[in-house]
């Protein structure tokens, strides 16, 4: 039988409550003064993240306004063609990579702890690292425009334009800068996924979690599989630009179309990575104002997961005009139609919820209506362009511009603005202005429609996108002028919105608690919020605990639930099981530290210096960044606690230290490696892609890596893999000699295995600049060798931890996680062996 933990029946003594609050306050007090910037608490970092993302939104918006000024009249001289190219490239890139995707991660980092009744998320320093990386990468790109050094090849950077005809540093800036930001995005995903799976309050079972969490879980998982193809593609393109390896050069066996595949393998799921978290906001707002639980919870979960999967089967619909086989177009056209089903289902669920409940007229709901209407229009034109024959006409015209902006503004901006009005009280305890908000809504909604509706027609009349001007007499003048007028209205709407957001609210009263009468957990928060998040961690019985659980606010506030104290003065959070959210661990998490900042700074050096062809400084940065990350792990993770268990109240004792698949670190490793292996699979896709292009691939007569060295390398790496996982067992039996010996030998095997991988192409004199075959083989070998190198560092780290007494037979998080890493090395090595050695033989 299942026993629920009820809140304490009696009020704890007032003096005890006071002492508990004081201890919690001391543990969670944000750092003061300059040290504020060393804070790592997710609620604080989430605020920085959101503010920065809004800055980028404004930046991208200004660029959009400049473009509309240029296009207002024919033959306008406001901007040169080159400037215009840079402006539209940066506009698209900023809006996609620096606003639309990160805003979901920023919002989630900020609000997930509240939604989950958690004190924090499991990897606060990782969030801080992601934020600083995002700041550095984003600012670099934005500043490049001011120095006339921005990329100008469009936000999707097609080669050969970007490989042969963009000599400046703009394209390098894009490729390296965004790879850096994508790494940060993957870091944030790790945090969000593990946070949702493992840090829910007791009783918040998998079918009771807020819908927002489902959507973010799916979007986070999509990031893991969508970003790596782009990172890999960017790597290939940058290597071609910097080292002349011909991945996209058809004269040497390459093909520019591979870029389009890799880009859209990212680019289409990305649309849904943006869209799903925005619908998630809608799914939180609608029940609140309909005053009723969501209708069709399971159906919405279906929509989120189904959309997540199907969105990976759409990428070719961006490539309908590239001459792919007719049947391929048909397959992707079919998938593009199928995704309309789950997208429609969730919209019907929202409508049904509104019909079942009684909708209260409110500002956030106006934005929800605006969002749904706009998104449906964008979705329907999307179904139109999913029909290949229609797309042949509309491709690269303003029809597409109109379509994608309807999807993105309806599917992202309106929900974002509405959610800002809704959630703002959680940020500083004050409400935004209802009166200004209504003005914002009408300006934005009218402005949007006046701008983008005419563009459908402009496009059908044949105006191509990305032209910096047009001649008179083509029938574009009036429509463009209307669009520019609309843009002015839209910009005014944003100006009022930003004013409302950032104006001083010192003299305004605090909002009442739960001002909208919502049912979800985040509205427990006091106004303004306390640094500890929740005073005690509640037991959840319902999807809408604030509606269904009597006295929950009082019980949480008085510390009648779990973990109402910080006895040891440490920052602690509760880790629970994935399906049923049963308490499994009290996790101690690190407090303020600059180490995440420094690690991000030097990681940034690794990506930014190569833009200027400064490879040695980049290498130095890589070494320093590795050192910093090791130090960060050394002092901030897998700490051996002073006692085994901790009492968290209600007769529950949980361990302070768990390892293996119970630990959050293990999941972080698994999730990260799924992303890494996806990048590797993308590289294999490249190899097979070249093979389908050319019957003579690998080209006869060209030297290959031979069978000996790759096979030896694979065997050695498999040895290291097996040994490391044996060490895990020996360690648990406390056989110190075997542990040190095994780790030492596996280090040697890793070095030898990596070297043997490189020896294949090297000793056979394969020239990577000569042909794409040699380039691909080299890259596969280097990729595998780098994994061996990482494994070497990890095994050496385990030796050091064990020697320092920080890893023991009982406290063995490190060796579990490293063993898991080696599984992925083994998979990589075997796949490399198959491609390098077996594939040419079978052929």
């Amino acid at each position, binding site marked *: *039988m*299942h026993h*629920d933990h009820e809140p304490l029946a009696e009020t704890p003594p007032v003096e005890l409550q006071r002492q508990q609050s004081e201890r919690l306050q001391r543990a969670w007090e944000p750092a003061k003064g300059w040290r504020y910037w060393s804070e790592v608490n997710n609620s604080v970092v989430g605020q920085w993240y959101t503010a920065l993302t809004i800055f980028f939104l404004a930046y991208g918006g200004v660029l959009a306004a400049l473009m509309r000024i240029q296009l207002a009249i024919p033959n306008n001289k406001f901007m040169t063609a080159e400037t215009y190219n840079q402006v539209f490239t940066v506009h698209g890139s900023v809006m996609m990579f620096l606003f639309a995707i990160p805003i979901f991660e920023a919002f989630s980092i900020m609000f997930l702890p509240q939604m989950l009744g958690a004190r924090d998320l499991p990897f606060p320093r990782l969030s801080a690292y992601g934020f600083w990386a995002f700041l550095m990468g984003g600012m670099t790109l934005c500043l490049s425009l001011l120095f006339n050094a921005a990329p100008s090849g469009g936000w999707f950077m097609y080669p050969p334009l970007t490989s042969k005809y963009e000599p400046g540093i703009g394209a390098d800036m894009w490729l390296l800068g965004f790879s850096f930001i994508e790494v940060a995005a993957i870091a944030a995903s790790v945090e969000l996924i593990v946070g949702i799976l493992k840090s829910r309050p007791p*009783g918040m*079972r*998998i*079918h*009771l979690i807020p819908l927002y969490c489902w959507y973010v879980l799916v979007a986070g998982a999509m990031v893991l599989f969508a970003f790596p193809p782009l990172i890999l593609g960017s790597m290939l393109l940058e290597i071609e630009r910097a080292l002349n390896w011909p991945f996209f050069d058809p004269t040497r066996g390459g093909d520019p179309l591979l870029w389009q595949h890799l880009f859209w393998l990212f680019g289409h799921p990305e649309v849904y990575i943006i869209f799903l978290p925005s619908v998630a906001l809608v799914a939180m707002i609608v029940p609140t104002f309909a005053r009723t*639980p969501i209708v069709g*919870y*399971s*159906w919405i*979960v*279906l929509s989120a*997961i*189904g959309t*997540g*999967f*199907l969105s*990976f*089967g759409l990428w*070719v619909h961006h490539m309908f005009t590239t001459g792919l*086989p*007719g*049947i*391929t*177009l*048909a*397959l992707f*056209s*079919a*998938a593009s*139609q*199928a995704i309309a*089903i*789950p997208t429609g289902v969730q919209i019907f669920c929202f409508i049904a919820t509104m019909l079942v409940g009684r909708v209260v007229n409110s500002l956030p709901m106006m934005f929800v209506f605006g969002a749904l209407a706009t998104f449906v229009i964008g979705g329907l034109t999307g179904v139109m362009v999913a029909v290949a024959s229609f797309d042949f006409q509309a491709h690269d015209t303003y029809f597409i511009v109109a379509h994608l902006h309807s999807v993105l503004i309806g599917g992202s901006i309106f929900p974002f603005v509405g959610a800002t009005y809704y959630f703002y009280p959680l940020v500083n305890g004050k409400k935004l202005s209802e009166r200004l908000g209504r003005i914002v809504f009408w300006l934005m909604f009218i402005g949007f429609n006046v701008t983008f509706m005419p563009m459908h027609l402009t496009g059908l009349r044949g105006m191509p996108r990305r032209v910096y001007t047009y001649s008179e007499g083509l029938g574009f003048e009036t429509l463009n002028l209307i669009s520019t007028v609309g843009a002015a209205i839209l910009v005014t709407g944003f100006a009022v919105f930003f004013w409302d957001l950032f104006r001083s609210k010192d003299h305004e009263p605090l909002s009442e608690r739960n001002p909208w009468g919502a049912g979800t957990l985040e509205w427990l928060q006091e106004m303004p919020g306390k640094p500890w998040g929740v005073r005690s961690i509640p037991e*959840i*019985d*319902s*999807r809408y605990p604030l509606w269904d659980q009597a006295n929950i606010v009082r019980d949480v506030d008085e510390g009648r639930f779990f973990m109402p104290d910080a006895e040891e003065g440490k920052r602690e959070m509760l880790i629970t*099981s*994935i*399906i*049923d959210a*049963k308490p499994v661990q009290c996790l101690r998490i690190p407090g303020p530290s600059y180490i995440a900042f420094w690690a991000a700074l030097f990681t940034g050096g690794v990506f930014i210096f190569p833009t200027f062809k400064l490879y040695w400084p980049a290498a130095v940065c890589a070494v320093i960044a590795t050192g910093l990350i090791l130090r960060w792990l050394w002092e901030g993770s897998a700490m051996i606690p002073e006692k085994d268990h901790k009492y968290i109240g209600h007769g529950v004792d949980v361990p302070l230290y768990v390892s293996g698949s119970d630990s959050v670190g293990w999941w972080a490793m698994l999730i990260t490696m799924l992303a890494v292996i996806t990048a590797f699979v993308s590289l294999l896709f490249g190899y*097979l*892609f070249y093979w*389908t*292009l050319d*019957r003579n691939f690998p080209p006869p007569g060209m030297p290959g890596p031979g069978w000996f060295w790759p096979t030896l390398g694979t065997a050695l790496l498999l040895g290291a893999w097996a040994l490391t996982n044996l060490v895990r067992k020996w360690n648990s039996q406390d056989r110190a000699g075997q542990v040190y010996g095994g780790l030492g030998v596996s280090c040697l095997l890793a070095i030898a295995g990596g070297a043997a991988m490189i020896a294949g192409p090297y000793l056979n004199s394969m020239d990577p600049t000569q042909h794409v075959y040699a380039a691909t083989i080299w890259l596969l070998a280097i990729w595998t060798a780098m994994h061996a190198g990482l494994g070497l560092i990890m095994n050496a780290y385990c030796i050091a931890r064990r020697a320092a007494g920080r890893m023991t037979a009982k406290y063995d998080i490190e060796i579990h996680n490293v063993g898991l890493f080696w599984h992925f090395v083994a998979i990589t090595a075997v796949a490399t062996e198959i491609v390098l050695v077996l594939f040419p033989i079978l052929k």
Partner: protein
Amino acid sequence: MISQAHTDVEEKRQSLWLLAWPPTIWAVHFLGSYALAAVWCRGGSTGSYWLGVSIAAPALVALALIGFAGWIGWKKHTIPGGKPSHDGDNNEDRTRFLGFATVLLAALSAVATIYTSVAALISGGCG
């Protein structure tokens, strides 16, 4: 004591992976179809009706596997216990939810797989 009937709904017998099963089968079939078309059509081959059939036939296997996942989901969804609206904090309602979400995903995946094969049968050409 936990009775035998209850072990079916214990947490360790539940998994989120079941949810991913039906759409993963769609994905595998879809990717296989894409790869088959790419290989079949390479080097300027014109393709034929048989290409469409080679995509549609394995779809039957895919549909069977999706159906099997849906059946498991249905069984979970129809276990006794819990009480309507089935959103309570208990094992039965949780299991019913996981089951029902699996059924829905199986239905969607089946539709998407059928779309794939119909598209392939109608347009078997490489041109």
